[in-house]
């Protein structure tokens, strides 16, 4: 019995890789297993080499494994590329009749995927469903949950579609039962607490978090890997009274959300690095006019177009510094789906409370990967609008000044059209009343007012996550989506006798209070783990804490870290 199993489904774009992975993922997560699915796709609609990798574990999992137990090749030619990753006793499933690949090894199992698909429904389109059925047989699992899921997924497309898919799945399942020895099967043990889980990816978690935080207006321009957020919001906009307006470009997107936010509704946009470049001036506009704005940036490797469908962590410094001039902002970087959900709630509350932009950094690895979560507690997101005033709450509406001095830096905000008074907002330096000014004195006062917010904001930032608290000899330092690989690496290293702690930041800017340092031993060797060339966060960490990292483990090939890579590199340097 295994307690950790990875299935890689590879093939061409358009072959239905994702329906195989999501079906397997969903069925196991419903049975209480922990599941992690990562997507490795090329920037094309059809063809190429792509894979999804489903990891099923009896214990929590947030990252991919470096080795695979089952390789499913929907396209014969894909076999050669992925075979080196297959474990010695792993199983390869490929179309023996359609593939140039030939093998006599007992664990290389040829299945006539295309023929079985055509026989089940006169169409080769269901070969992915044949493969899914075969996978369940390889796992020694029952077929019933899969048939139920097919009914659920294809039922809406008509009875015939569902029936044909069920036939296809049964054909694949049966073929394996009849053609493979029982002792080759890879069975997985039961999870300890078989509590039903939910499965969602980072983009969905971000979108749901935003909706539960009271999102009302959304504008964006599609850009991988952020588009999933916009599509999710679009699909659910009607149910939640959200207006989604597709923008002509990212400049328009950020300016539209600023307009809507000025009018008083919670607004957001999302993009990737390239689009965020276009948004930079708008970010400053939110800062200067003191308009709340939430911007999600799903990073991908740059510069310029870079690797559009791959992952990277190179935009951290950019997010912290984007736009001319100085103004307060916060930057978050969730490590997994559940954290992304909750941080969206915090992002909206902070943006409102400090009337300034908040940036949430994701990346392809966070946004596209699926995570299991026990449940998303929607009640934990408390919507606090802060400082939005009605006429009753303002002493003298007719003398209202939008940027009235306050030592916290935040002035109460009225909403246009909902007050007897009017308000002026300005991107020029302005007086308390919001009119353009050239006065040196007013400029100084207004800079102080805006920057004063930093003091309050600093106190809002949560401490980094340290795991375990027990002091170690090695500390793995990171932020954002490396969470899963780091956590697993820390645990693996500890098991190998190297006491290791993970120090993970999801709230990066403003840098949290330094109290957490007491849990990090002075003599511990710090390894920075980052998906960029320069170790951007390591430098910020040194600047903020005075502590240099001892080693940097950096990766910039567009692929996510696995725990194994971290473990090996740490061991090599000890």
């Amino acid at each position, binding site marked *: 019995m295994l307690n950790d199993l990875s299935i890689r489904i590879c093939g061409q774009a358009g072959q239905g890789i994702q329906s195989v992975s999501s079906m397997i993922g969903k069925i196991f997560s419903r049975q209480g297993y922990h599941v992690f699915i990562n997507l490795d796709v090329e920037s094309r609609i059809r063809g190429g080499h792509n894979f999804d990798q489903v990891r099923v574990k009896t214990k929590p999992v947030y990252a991919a494994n470096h080795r695979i137990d089952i390789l499913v090749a929907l396209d014969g030619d894909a076999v050669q590329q992925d075979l080196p990753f297959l474990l010695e006793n792993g199983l390869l499933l490929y179309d023996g009749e359609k593939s140039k690949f030939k093998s006599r090894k007992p664990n290389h199992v040829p299945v006539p995927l295309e023929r079985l698909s055509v026989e089940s429904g006169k169409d080769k389109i269901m070969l992915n469903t044949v493969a899914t059925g075969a996978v369940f047989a390889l796992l020694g699992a029952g077929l019933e949950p899969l048939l139920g899921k097919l009914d659920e997924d294809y039922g809406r497309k008509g009875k015939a579609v569902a029936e044909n898919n069920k036939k296809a799945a049964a054909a694949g399942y049966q073929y394996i039962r009849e053609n493979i020895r029982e002792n080759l099967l890879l069975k997985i043990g039961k999870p300890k607490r078989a509590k039903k889980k939910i499965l969602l990816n980072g983009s969905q978690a971000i979108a749901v978090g935003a909706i539960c935080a009271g999102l009302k207006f959304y504008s964006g321009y599609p850009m991988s890997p952020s588009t999933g957020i916009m599509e999710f919001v679009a699909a659910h906009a009607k149910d939640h009274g959200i*207006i989604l307006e597709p923008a002509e470009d990212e400049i328009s997107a950020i300016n539209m959300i600023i307009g809507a936010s000025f009018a008083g509704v919670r607004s957001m946009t999302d993009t990737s690095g390239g689009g965020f470049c276009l948004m930079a001036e708008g970010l400053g506009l939110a800062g200067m006019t003191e308009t709340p704005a939430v911007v999600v940036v799903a990073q991908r490797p740059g510069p310029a177009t870079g690797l559009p469908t791959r992952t990277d962590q190179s935009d951290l410094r950019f997010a912290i510094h984007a736009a001319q001039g100085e103004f307060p902002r916060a930057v978050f970087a969730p490590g997994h789906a559940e954290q992304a959900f909750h941080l969206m709630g915090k992002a909206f509350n902070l943006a409102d409370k400090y009337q300034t932009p908040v940036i949430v950094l994701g990346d392809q690895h966070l946004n596209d990967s699926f995570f299991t979560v026990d449940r998303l507690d929607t009640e934990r997101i408390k919507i606090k609008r802060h400082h939005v005033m009605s006429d009753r709450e303002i002493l003298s509406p007719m003398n209202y000044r939008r940027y009235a001095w306050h030592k916290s830096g935040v002035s109460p905000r009225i909403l246009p059209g909902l007050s007897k008074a009017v308000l002026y907002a300005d991107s020029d330096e302005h007086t308390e009343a919001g009119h353009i000014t050239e006065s040196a004195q007013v400029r100084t006062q207004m800079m102080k007012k805006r920057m004063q917010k930093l003091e309050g904001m600093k106190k809002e930032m949560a401490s980094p996550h340290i795991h375990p608290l027990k002091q170690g000899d090695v500390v793995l330092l990171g932020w954002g989506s490396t969470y899963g690989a780091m956590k697993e690496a820390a645990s693996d290293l500890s098991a190998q006798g190297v006491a290791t702690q993970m120090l993970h930041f999801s709230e990066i800017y403003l840098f949290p209070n330094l109290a957490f340092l007491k849990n990090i031993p002075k003599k511990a060797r710090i390894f920075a783990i980052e998906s960029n060339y320069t170790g951007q966060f390591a430098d910020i960490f040194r600047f903020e804490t005075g502590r240099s990292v001892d080693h940097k483990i950096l990766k910039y090939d567009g692929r996510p870290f696995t725990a194994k890579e971290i473990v090996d590199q740490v061991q090599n340097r000890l």
Partner: protein
Amino acid sequence: MVTLDDFYSEDPIAWCAGCGNFSILKALKQAFVELGKKPNEIAIVSGIGQAPKTPHYLKCNAFNGLHGRTLPVATGLKLANHKLTVLAGGGDGDGYGEGGNHFIHAMRRNIDITYLVHNNQVYGLTKGQTSPTSDLGFVTKTTPAGSASMPLNPLALAVAVGCCFVARGFAGDIDHLSPLIQQGILHKGFALIDILQPCVSFNRVNTFQWYKERVYHLDEEYDRKDKVVAFSKAQEWGEKIPIGILYAKERPTLDEQIPAISKTSLVKQRIRPKAFKKLVSIFE
């Protein structure tokens, strides 16, 4: 009753003496008074330039944003509170140059706002460079040999991309301009009013006198519902320059087509936390 005094702003005006913007400001205030719009029912969004300072000089809700980004801000604002009367304003550089892409797409959307472009065919705030509407051969500090690019024809462009209210006014004719602005505001949908606005400091060619000799009012006979006629009328420039409504035909506006705000404006809607639980359940 609303009076001109209600629109008094204490902010001192920073325009050059004799600037065409003064008459546009006056025409705008008059239009609000005639329509009985109160200052708090109006929001004006502007960008950067001399014209975008306009909202400071009257009483209304105002968002003076970035250069060229007026229309996206106005669009977001209108969608979030479509009960507000939303106007956008700026110059030819702001709207037709820096904000050209937004100009096209705002017209496609047909968001219900009125867009006043103070078109002086030159950059004023940066002190006299060529603009997208400068005539061929127009000599400036950045085009010492004369502007070599075809001037943009905003009205023809507007007709082509489906703008459903396309008009031209003249800062030297307030009695014509003010009612034109009123009609733009009353029009349901995106209304473009390109206003010929002489720049007394940097445009010595297209002066008040130059325009006065050329502009004429479109008469009762003119068929403003015909797109082809409008497109052809929009080509008229030089000896004779038509002012008035070149094209007006209503079509559904963006805000009308969103069921979520058919009754209540977005900003007044309550959050329904009960729906969140259902939303999360789709991942089970």
